[in-house]
């Protein structure tokens, strides 16, 4: 019997596979992970206190910087929370534009998440370029609509900042035509590669009851086989008018989370096609003309949540009747999805940690806030 000794290893904060400045204090026995403690806060800027010193509208561009991959989704959740607090109505057309943007964001996020995950498995750079390829085209669409590629700041209370430009829809249709072949290609990258399958199947298993007790959400929860999606569980905006499925995994390993993301991209494409059918008949303009942007909501509180690409994104706001929020709280999906990381890594090899972390899909801007 070989005598072994437990060893503590630091992974991060500056490490190419930690998706930002994230540190893991890993206790290893040989190559096997015995325990793991996540350490973060390197990007902490007290976002919530900054937001409490701003007016409601001034916070809209700040929400872009939470999860900088999905600025449209962050805008949506925040706009919904303020609209609930102040009782602002949103016209139908604006709702459709919002859904369109958030579903495009989901395709963008999942494509790059899959690319980064395969990157973490050691297939350095080339698959990531595949993941980023269509992302560029979606960012071009965002630029047409909002003027910015990443920090879109496109949503306003009661609608969106401006209507879709005339060249938007033709470009979107062209993208939709190319999308199915692209998604299939991305799926084949992992599904048909024996070496990558060895790194993904049966790794980082999160059983459904454990996933639920940890409060995780998004593709991580659905990868574990629980069909919980805010778009179906508590439909918001116009999501109750669309026909789409919630993909779920079987065992809850890295491979299942990958498959869920691939399938969600297909479902997002289905939703976008239905949006394009229904958009011409939608009533109203791109914004409610009566909605004041300089809101002073009555005393009270409101919570709004959406299915952001990474999970349940919620904003809890308390108003004291002034132009600034009294309390502004973000329920960040990346942050909560990290809670079961130690349980998911225990018993696997050191090299698997990086893959498991990649399969959770975190963004440190949102974890640290």
């Amino acid at each position: 019997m070989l005598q072994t000794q437990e060893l503590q290893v630091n992974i991060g904060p500056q490490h190419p596979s930690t998706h930002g400045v994230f540190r893991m204090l890993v206790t290893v026995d040989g190559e096997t992970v015995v325990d793991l403690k996540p350490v973060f806060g390197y990007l902490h800027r007290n976002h919530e206190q900054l937001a409490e010193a701003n007016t409601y509208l001034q916070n809209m561009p700040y929400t872009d910087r939470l999860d900088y991959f999905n600025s449209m989704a962050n805008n949506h959740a925040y706009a919904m929370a303020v609209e609930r607090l102040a009782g602002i109505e949103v016209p139908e057309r604006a709702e459709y534009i919002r859904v369109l943007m958030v579903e495009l964001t989901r395709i963008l996020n999942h494509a790059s998440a899959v690319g980064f995950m395969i990157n973490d498995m050691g297939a350095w750079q080339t698959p990531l370029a595949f993941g980023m390829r269509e992302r560029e085209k979606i960012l071009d669409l965002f630029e047409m609509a909002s003027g910015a590629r990443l920090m879109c700041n496109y949503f306003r209370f009661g609608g969106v900042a401006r209507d879709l430009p005339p060249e938007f829809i033709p470009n979107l249709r062209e993208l939709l035509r190319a999308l199915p072949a692209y998604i299939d290609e991305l799926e084949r990258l992992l599904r048909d590669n024996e070496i990558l399958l060895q790194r993904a199947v049966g790794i980082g298993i999160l059983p459904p009851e454990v996933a639920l007790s940890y409060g995780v959400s998004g593709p991580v929860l659905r990868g574990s086989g629980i069909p919980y999606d805010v778009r179906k569980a508590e439909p918001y905006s116009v999501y109750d008018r669309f026909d789409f499925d919630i993909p779920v995994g079987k065992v809850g390993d890295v491979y299942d989370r990958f498959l869920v993301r691939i399938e969600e991209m297909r479902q997002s494409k289905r939703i976008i096609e239905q949006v394009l059918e229904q958009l011409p008949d939608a009533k109203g303009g791109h914004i409610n003309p009566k909605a004041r942007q300089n809101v002073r909501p009555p005393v009270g509180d409101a919570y709004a949540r959406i299915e952001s690409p990474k999970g349940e994104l919620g904003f809890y706001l308390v108003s004291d009747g002034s132009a600034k929020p009294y309390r502004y709280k973000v329920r960040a999906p990346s942050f909560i999805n990290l809670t079961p990381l130690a349980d998911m890594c225990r018993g696997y090899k050191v090299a698997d940690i990086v893959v498991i972390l990649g399969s959770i899909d975190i963004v440190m801007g949102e974890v640290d806030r």
Partner: protein
Amino acid sequence: MPELTPAELRARLAEVMPMALLEPEPLAITPPPSHGPQPGLFQPSDPLVKPDHLVAAALFMRDTLGYAYLSDIAVVDYLYAGCFELVYRFYHPAGGSSLVLRVRVPRDHPVLPSLTPHWPAANFHEREAFDLFGIEFTGHPHLRRIYMWDEFEGFPMRKDFPRQGDKYLGGDEG
């Protein structure tokens, strides 16, 4: 889809654990004005639970009512009312809107039992509340600062935390 309103939840809790519920008093959210009309008071409709009974009430939500998804714990500092309010938000995995339990702890002694040993979803939420608001959760297995560094003094999200000119910024910078 199960749909329980806050009033129905109150009634269910009153049936099972009558000692746990408190009559919610409206909270003063702004300082009383020297003149002019009194601003509105904040009066939530959700059940207000005594801190000692919080764990029992949360487990009742999960095990009896089936609200097994603990989504969020938000802390609000009501400086002028002299208390912190914690907002626990639960969902049913089958869908539907949220149910909320509220707990109030005094600002000068913010201690309450931890939910983490019974429900690991509370872990990071409670550590965040400890780090930013200084709320102590007794029985938490690993109650350490989560964002700020360990040597940091004070709790930055409290309403009386100095916004400018504290020791970390170095002198008064405007």
